[in-house]
């Protein structure tokens, strides 16, 4: 057993176990944390398969953004997860059927070469082994695909502008920190020295 195979089994085992824990954990916050563990292990598997770009993207996008967003949603919204889980037994048969269908589909995809060995020759543009796949994406991202890349950027800008336009309310009467006025404050404006005679009070 090579080192790579050892890593594969360790990562897969933790991946499957944490995936199970995502749906079994009682506390939804724990579920999200197991989901993050799941993502990290999947990224490790991608790394083993030589797809280091996908591994990095998985970490940055899913762990860095999506999972954190989930965490926010779970902690902010008052969802009664115990109530949501009540119907588990009732829906179990349906879930099992869907799971079996998915398993059969996966087996046909993976085991397709047993039926027709020609299917393995499908990849049209194989990545040459002398450059990494991050480098091969980098070679076209800012040259051949510059238009798509920049247009996607503008679409994201519109999405951001739209979110701000539709949700940002400038409320009157909210006390905000204004550093300029804080710095400009003088001693004379805020402190009054009073000579209090004893026994008199202010």
């Amino acid at each position, binding site marked *: 057993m090579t080192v790579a195979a050892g890593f594969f089994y360790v990562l897969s085992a933790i991946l499957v176990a944490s995936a199970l824990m995502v749906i079994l954990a009682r506390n939804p916050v724990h579920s999200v944390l197991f989901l993050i563990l799941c993502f990290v292990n999947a990224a490790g598997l991608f790394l083993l398969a030589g797809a280091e770009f996908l591994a990095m993207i998985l970490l940055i996008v899913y762990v860095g953004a999506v999972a954190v967003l989930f965490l926010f949603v779970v902690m902010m919204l008052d969802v009664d997860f115990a109530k949501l889980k009540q119907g588990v037994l009732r829906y179990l048969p349906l879930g099992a059927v869907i799971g079996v269908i998915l398993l059969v589909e996966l087996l046909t995809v993976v085991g397709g070469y047993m039926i027709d060995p020609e299917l393995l020759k499908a990849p*049209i543009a194989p990545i040459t082994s002398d450059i990494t796949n991050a480098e091969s994406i980098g070679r076209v991202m800012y*040259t*051949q695909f*510059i*238009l*798509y890349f920049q*247009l*996607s950027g*503008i*679409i994201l*800008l*519109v*999405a951001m*502008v*739209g979110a*701000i*336009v*539709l949700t940002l309310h*400038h409320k009157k009467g909210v006390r905000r920190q204004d550093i300029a006025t804080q710095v400009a404050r003088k001693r004379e404006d805020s402190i009054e020295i009073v000579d209090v005679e004893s026994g008199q009070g202010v």
Partner: protein
Amino acid sequence: MFETLNLAIALPELILILGAIALLMVGVFSNSNVTKMLHISAMALALVVVTIFIIFTQGSEEATAFFGSFYVSDFTKAFKIILLIGTGFAILMAIEFKKRENFTQFELPVLMLLAAAGMMVMVSANDMATLYLGLELQSLSLYVLAAIHRDNVKATEAGLKYFVLGALSSGMLLYGISLIYGFTGSIGYSQIASSIASGNANEIGVIFGIVFILAGLAFKISAAPFHMWTPDVYEGSPTPITAFFASAPKVAAMALLARVSMEAFAPMGDAWQQIIIFLAVASMALGAVAAIAQSDIKRLMAYSSIGNMGFALVGLAAQNEKGIYGLLLYITIYMFMTLGAFACIQAMQKDKVSLTKISDLAGCGKSNPFLAILLTLIMFSMIGIPPLAGFFAKFYAFLAAVDAGLYPLAIIGVVLSVISAYYYLRVIKVMFFDEGEYDHDPMAGELKIVLAASSAVIILFVLFKLAVDDFMLQAAAAMFN
């Protein structure tokens, strides 16, 4: 490196996008009061004019940029100029709305500019990825614009409806694109066409892809049976935004539809012609019949625009040079008629509250004869009475259909055009013959400019045609080079 990018070809788009981003910065770092907002609108208007000017100065030969994914010719130039004119008028109409509502969100004209940039990319797209990105840039800006009047429940509802249905149509479009990519092995228009022509692609698979792509695009031009969102969105959005929805995006989506079907799917002409004919007949019929029962003039205009899209599709269904010329002419005239009509609708306000019932126009013929006569002429033009512009629009569309041997389509179109005359005439009847108190606020200057410009085109169309006919014929011919 820069030679292959050919940046100069995409100069109008670059200027528009960079200008919009600059305006965004100006807006963010200036105080939010109404006069500042008006300055930003004026700058946006100037930017649109500059962009039109740059398009005019570009050469008329075909060229591609960004490694073949961006295409310009006389065809794209003509459509871009028209949609920019529509955008400019819509920005002008929005100025009035901002003044009246004391609207301080400077993003309104910026989003219109970004939507216009998306439309220009749609028109110039030369592969499926650029098509989709342009379409999303346009749609996303439009979703936000629909809901921009966020304190208004109806506008919010309109924005949400538009977003959900628009996302659905984008999904269908993407599914179609993925099928086409799977069966032809490429996303470039010309490569798709050559793959289909060489017989390498599975024909049934390609037909499936075409159906999904056309369904997605039919959503965007609101052709029946994919029109459900139109009346609600038109009714709920503020009037200048509705005018924008009804004008420029339709021009861009029509150009996109023409380019995808005539370039990428040219070898499958018979397959998509059936779909286009069905869409045309269904839209014309729905537009003619469903508008009769409407009491809200914005909903009426929504059904009218559905019907008009049907008439424009007749030109595309003909699949010849005359058909493309008819399509271009129709969409140009439609845009001017719609903008004129919406300028009148926006002028219907009492104590700064806009009215949208058709019955609110009663008595207009007596107290404001000038407005009433111009609106009457626009309605006559929509019916297609010579020598107004609408007559020529329908004439050339049907002429192309007859030329291509599509006699039943032309006959159905003429009959449905007569049926649709009823509701246009009803608006005129309400204005001149119904008793009513018409004491609306005086029409704002910005609306007067839009109304004057569009009625000038409609009334003096014969002269207008003499001026632009050569260019339009060139544009239609560019599609067949």
